[in-house]
């Protein structure tokens, strides 16, 4: 059952690759624009790198997320999901997991390239990957929650207004971990906090997304 949801998402992403890869393109472009705009000051670039990469990742993940459930609502499949034998929160959780694989894993693969562009050390790049791997699932869940809450409303602005404040802790801990690592300090506390955020998101958001979707159906 959950496999069916996963296979369906993968198939849809494969049939519409532009949607799936738009976020990656955005991530790489934004990450590359900062060095061009700021000039070749390597100390400055190293200093701002964690923040820039994290903000770019956050915005790339939010890009297009308002459409996450729009198609399902329009073609009536959301009603079938709500009536399914499997609880809605499980189905939705699986959908977000598949979306994370489609949208966030390419970012993880591209992040080291961006890191080297900013002159990050190998250690810092390793921590950046770990922080992104822990933080992006929470961001995907929050974005899905925003998409469910704003379902049926036009425009992307409201989604950003709902999701961005909630994602601030992840942004802070994520970039803090990378800054610590580039200063040669331990990144473990920040990574632990990112893990705690992920646990909290995993516990609360699938249920909240399911409730928001039921409200949207009424």
């Amino acid at each position: 059952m959950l496999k069916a949801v996963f296979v369906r998402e993968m198939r849809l992403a494969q049939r519409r690759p532009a949607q799936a890869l738009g976020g990656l393109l955005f991530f790489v472009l934004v990450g590359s624009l900062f060095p061009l705009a700021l000039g070749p000051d390597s100390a400055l670039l190293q200093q701002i790198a964690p923040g820039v990469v994290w903000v770019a990742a956050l915005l790339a993940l939010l890009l297009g997320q308002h459409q996450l459930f729009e198609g399902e609502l329009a073609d009536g499949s959301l009603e079938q999901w709500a009536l399914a034998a499997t609880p809605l929160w499980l189905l939705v959780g699986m959908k977000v997991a598949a979306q994370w694989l489609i949208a966030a894993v390419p970012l993880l693969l591209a992040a080291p390239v961006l890191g080297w562009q900013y002159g990050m050390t190998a250690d810092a790049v390793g921590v950046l990957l770990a922080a992104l791997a822990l933080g992006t699932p929470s961001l995907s869940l929050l974005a899905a929650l925003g998409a469910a809450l704003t379902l049926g409303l036009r425009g992307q602005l409201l989604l950003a207004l709902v999701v961005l404040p909630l994602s601030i802790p992840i942004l802070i801990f994520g970039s803090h971990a990378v800054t610590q690592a580039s200063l040669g300090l331990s990144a473990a506390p920040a990574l632990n906090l990112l893990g705690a955020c992920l646990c909290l998101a995993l516990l609360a958001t699938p249920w909240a997304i399911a409730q928001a979707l039921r409200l949207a159906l009424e």
Partner: protein
Amino acid sequence: MEPTAWADLSLAVSGWGCVRNGRVLLRELSFELGAGQLLVLKGRNGAGKSTLLRSLAGLMPWRAGRLAWAGQTLAPSAAPYQQQLAYLSHQAGMNDALTALENLRFALALQDQAWNAAHVARTLATLGLQDLGARPFGRLSQGQRRRLGLARVVLSDRPLWLLDEPDNALDDEGALCLADMLRAHCAAGGLAVVATHRGLALAEGLASTLDLSNLPTLNTPPEAAC
């Protein structure tokens, strides 16, 4: 289908009331359906046919009344009840980018229904869809989409069908096909509530009719939503 398993099912609705957009749409609505019985919902546009079907499927809140399934009073949003029903809305609930068969396979997986290739092929052939399985859903005509939605309802093997204008966009042959399906479903002991404008090609006596536009209670001015 197993007629014996469905023989003692019944759906009883009493005092049913629904509010939509702050307007009382249905009030004091009662009907009873036994195994093998079919209820046809009629009524002008906006009379509340779809609202009634959606509230019976547990997809939207109802304001008053009780629903008993097989003698047991329960909420329409209760999972054991929802797993007994197949609901077909105005849309088929299928994705344009996936093929007809992929959509069907996913819809049946959602309902925890095993994929029986022979049964699926037979049902698709009955509905005249046998050559369209590999075509993307978005490239089917409206009538073909409707037929595929009906195929899902038949294959889901549920005792209670809630169909919202299933004859929409169907040609004459499709309407006959629909009537055959409903007849077979009722013969097996299944129940169905069908909203329609056109009237189903069914023999007299099989279906009872509920006309929502002639409900006496609705002629009173609508109350403010509580």
